[in-house]
């Protein structure tokens, strides 16, 4: 915020509160449940508030989102048996399926896209949400997801192709579709 004075210590209200929607959106996509998402955001805000002394820089959004992400994964880990850390290669390739074309993408239904995204592994959902919905840069995604920038690039590629595959599977159930 331009209104803040550089010498003033960061405050939750000034630097983090404006990013409540971003925090909720990430939690909502990761946990796929509105109540769980609210709880996660509350927990993340408490943690952020207690750790505000460690906040450096001017943009609180990546910082808060990194905390939201950690809270969400703690919750997800309780419910899943997948090995840690996440294995990108086991979940998708970076090769282009030949079937899709621009026309098919222009015609794909929004609801189908949302369903497809919900079916991806959490790490892939996260990459797509941060990049496509929040519009964050690779570097910011890398900071939040705690992975190198190169991994952000390949993870996004895998996530988008996997989404494409999910859409094909979903569309196959409904009607003939270009995807």
């Amino acid at each position: 915020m331009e209104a803040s004075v550089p010498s003033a210590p960061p405050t939750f209200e000034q630097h983090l509160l404006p990013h409540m929607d971003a925090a909720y959106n990430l939690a909502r996509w990761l946990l796929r449940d509105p109540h769980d998402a609210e709880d996660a955001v509350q927990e993340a805000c408490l943690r952020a508030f207690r750790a505000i002394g460690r906040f450096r820089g001017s943009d609180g959004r990546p910082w808060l989102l990194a905390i939201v992400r950690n809270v969400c994964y703690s919750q997800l880990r309780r419910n899943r048996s997948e090995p840690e850390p996440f294995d990108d290669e086991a979940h998708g390739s970076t090769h282009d399926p030949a079937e899709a074309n621009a026309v098919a993408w222009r015609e794909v239904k929004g609801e189908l896209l949302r369903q497809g995204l919900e079916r991806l592994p959490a790490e892939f959902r996260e990459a797509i949400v941060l990049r496509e919905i929040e519009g964050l840069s690779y570097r910011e995604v890398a900071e939040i997801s705690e992975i190198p920038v190169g991994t952000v690039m390949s993870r996004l590629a895998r996530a988008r192709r996997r989404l494409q595959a999910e859409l094909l599977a979903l569309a196959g159930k409904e009607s003939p579709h270009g995807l």
Partner: protein
Amino acid sequence: MDCSETRRRIEADIDGELDLVRHLELAAHRQECPECARLDETLRARRAALREALPRFSAPSQLRGKVLAALRAEGMGGAAPAAPMRPAWVIWPNWNLVGVAASIAMALFVGYSWGQARARGNLLLDEAISDHIRSLQFNHLSDVVSADQHTVKPWFAGKLDFAPPVVDLASSGFPLAGGRLEHLAGRPAAALVFRRRQHAINLFIWPAGADPVSDRQAELNGYHARSWCHGGFNFLAVSEISAAELGQFAEIFQAAN
């Protein structure tokens, strides 16, 4: 650049993450290679579809309140929670009455009048200080953030039925930081935000009408307030800076108008 190299970089290019040289190399390759050009078109359409169709969930309205309540329980702000809304009938007292009352102290009704004026004065002061605290707590210091008086002044146009005087006092050590709308003394008011070191000064401005305020200063719970009337407007400045500094601010502001 060959096709496999292009394919590796095409998504980063669409994401706007390639440097200019590589971006231009890619564009040149697409000119020559219809297959890569088609892939580029497909991936751009995919990106557009994702951006358009994926909803950004907004935090439920009650979540913000819950979070703030939880943080206050943790000791956020250190200030008292914002006071509840004051009823609209609160009016500005004639603080001069206090002085007048002292000079005619033998009159029996004096104690009564003095008490009434004081009570109403405190209500307005309470209200203004609550606004000030709330503006700090809820990150709502400014609706328009600008140090430029020519940005802040037009912002109020159309939002208020009066045009408040706006001046930047940066050269005197009180830079203008922005402005917002407030409701004070039962009517809409302009709030100008000025900075003094790490502190904020809220300057409330509303038409004096039939209730001009007097030149007064007051202190409540560590906050200082200073009021004056000038050019048909009432002014009330509130801040946690010292009474002397706030007085200095008031003088500079009046001199600048």
